[in-house]
């Protein structure tokens, strides 16, 4: 086992354990914080794959943004003191069987399949290549991403502005 393997399994362990806590934790806040470690672990895997830019993006957006959003979401939906936020499990046995089957199939796929292996290219800076693709080949995707973000912004504002709108109508 090389150091590379060792680091990989370390990150994989972090991901698996924290992801398990996400689904198993009784308190939803614990789930949210456990997700932090999952995201970090994934960032570590990206580093191992030489995708340094993606790893940084993962940390900035998922850890810095999405997770904060999730925690806000938890905090604004429930009165934490009065109602216990709990996640309960139903139908444990059927779900174990089904996810066992799905998991088994996926493991079989990932171990048995003859994946197409790309030539290992060591790039000094992945950012340069990403930038070049973004403005040339994937230019239309790039602009489309902007529109999707805009739609998401409009939608969230529209949904979140609820209370204010009602007061406006009362004033009329």
């Amino acid at each position: 086992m090389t150091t590379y393997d060792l680091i990989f399994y370390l990150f994989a362990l972090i991901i698996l354990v924290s992801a398990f806590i996400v689904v198993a934790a009784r308190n939803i806040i614990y789930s949210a914080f456990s997700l932090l470690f999952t995201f970090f672990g994934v960032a570590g895997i990206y580093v191992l794959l030489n995708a340094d830019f993606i790893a940084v993006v993962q940390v900035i957006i998922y850890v810095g943004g999405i997770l904060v959003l999730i925690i806000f979401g938890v905090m604004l939906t429930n009165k934490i003191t009065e109602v216990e936020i709990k996640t309960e499990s139903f139908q444990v046995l059927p779900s174990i069987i089904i996810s066992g089957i799905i998991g088994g199939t996926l493991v079989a796929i990932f171990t048995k399949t003859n994946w197409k292996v790309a030539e290992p290219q060591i790039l000094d800076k992945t950012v340069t290549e990403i930038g070049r693709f973004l403005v040339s080949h994937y230019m239309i995707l790039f602009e489309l991403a902007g529109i999707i973000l805009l739609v998401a912004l409009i939608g969230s504002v529209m949904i979140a502005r609820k209370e204010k709108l009602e007061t406006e109508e009362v004033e009329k």
Partner: protein
Amino acid sequence: MENNSIQNILESLNYFTPELALMLTFFVLLLVDLFFRKSKYLLPAISLVGFIVSGYLLVYTPDVKGFLFSTGMTNIGLYVIDPFSFFFKILILLAMIYTILFSLSSKEINEAGGNRGEYYVLLSSFALGMFLLTSTIDLLLMYLSFELVSLSSYILAGFTRNVKRSAEASLKYIIFGAVASGAMLYGISILYGLTGTTNLYLINFYLSNQNIESLPLVIAGLLIIGGIGFKISMAPFHFWTPDVYEGAPITITAVLSVASKAAGFALLIRSLKIMFIDYTATNLQSSAWAILSQFKWNELIAGLAVLTMTLGNLAALWQSNLKRMLAYSSIAHAGYMLTGFVILDNQGIMAILIYFFIYLFMNLGAFFVVMLIADKLGSEEMEDYTGLGYKAPFLGVSLTIFLISLTGIPPTAGFVAKLYLFGALIKAKWIWLAVIGVLNSVISLYYYLKVVKNMFLRESEIEYSHNLGHGNLLITLSLLIPTLLFGIYFKPIIEFAEQSVRIFGF
């Protein structure tokens, strides 16, 4: 090489004008809504103009001889324009234009207060996403436009937020949609791992030249079919449909049941046909296509089609809410249309196109009449419709015609649609599928006619008078006349569909 790629992109933009027009409409609507928000008719007028301009550009876009946005290392781009996508884009535009017209007289939309601007803005982004879905040939672009369509429709489904069931519909839609797009993305990643490319044509090339294990291919195919199946409400991914259709504003229900389904079908047919057909062994003009590898996806789709139509029809039998019943009926129709794809030849695709064209008019018509009555009556319960046929004869008769057409009884257009579909099935020796389809149509007769019976054969004491405006009358007529006319004179649709089966490249 790089300069060449800019040339390509700029050239491609010439063919991309309908989509650019939609993008522009989106922005103009957004800005106009922000700065001039007084007039009631301004925004719908702008969106109508935008859609019509886009349609005009669509019709006058010259025939492309290559892929759009191809640059760099491969010559195969991200986007194609072909008769097949043209057909679905026309369909989507028609549905969008009707939706805008419906919204003008919809009580739900007009009473929604300060958010009417967003409604039109999101409708145009919805249209843009569907346009991209119909002609994308790259898995990445496919996923992104899928997300654009989904995001816009989640928000639109919850548009009347103060109504509890609308918020519920939106939430359920988001949860199901997130699972579906996650599954699709997973399938895409497996496919990418197998072939090393996201382009549908290159995937096909790789799959037909390389020996690939069938298990990962089957799983990837299943996941992708599942993701798209969510959009066309194919069983077993249909659970969201009744709740969302019932909870969403009825104009949105109408557009979801026609336009977003059309985009889903276009995507399903295009992606599966390009990826999983063996072109070396196929005579593409007439005979059946040969399937690549051991993944017999057409048998899978046959099973799902049977499941979809049977579940849809059986569940529709028990519904007392008209919107919910129409939701289940739209599931059943998706099932009928899927059977056309099982045959794996151009006849089957043609039958689907014919069916879709007719389905557009009859389904939109049924939803529009239900909307008009529900706005007046304040309810969509079937019980409240008793005796309506005498109090509002025009609406009653129109609804009856639309429902009869949905059943598929001559002389309405629905009959022609089913005739071509089941005819194609029988011709291709899929007789058991045709038999199940016919049996399902018989079941559907019961619940469609239950509405008619309620309207005409029972007396009621409800006071109801409907003063239908000229505009609504015209809209109803413009949906009613095709429904009847295409039942007798259907040659133009057949020709249009015949021209439109051609998918780019093959």
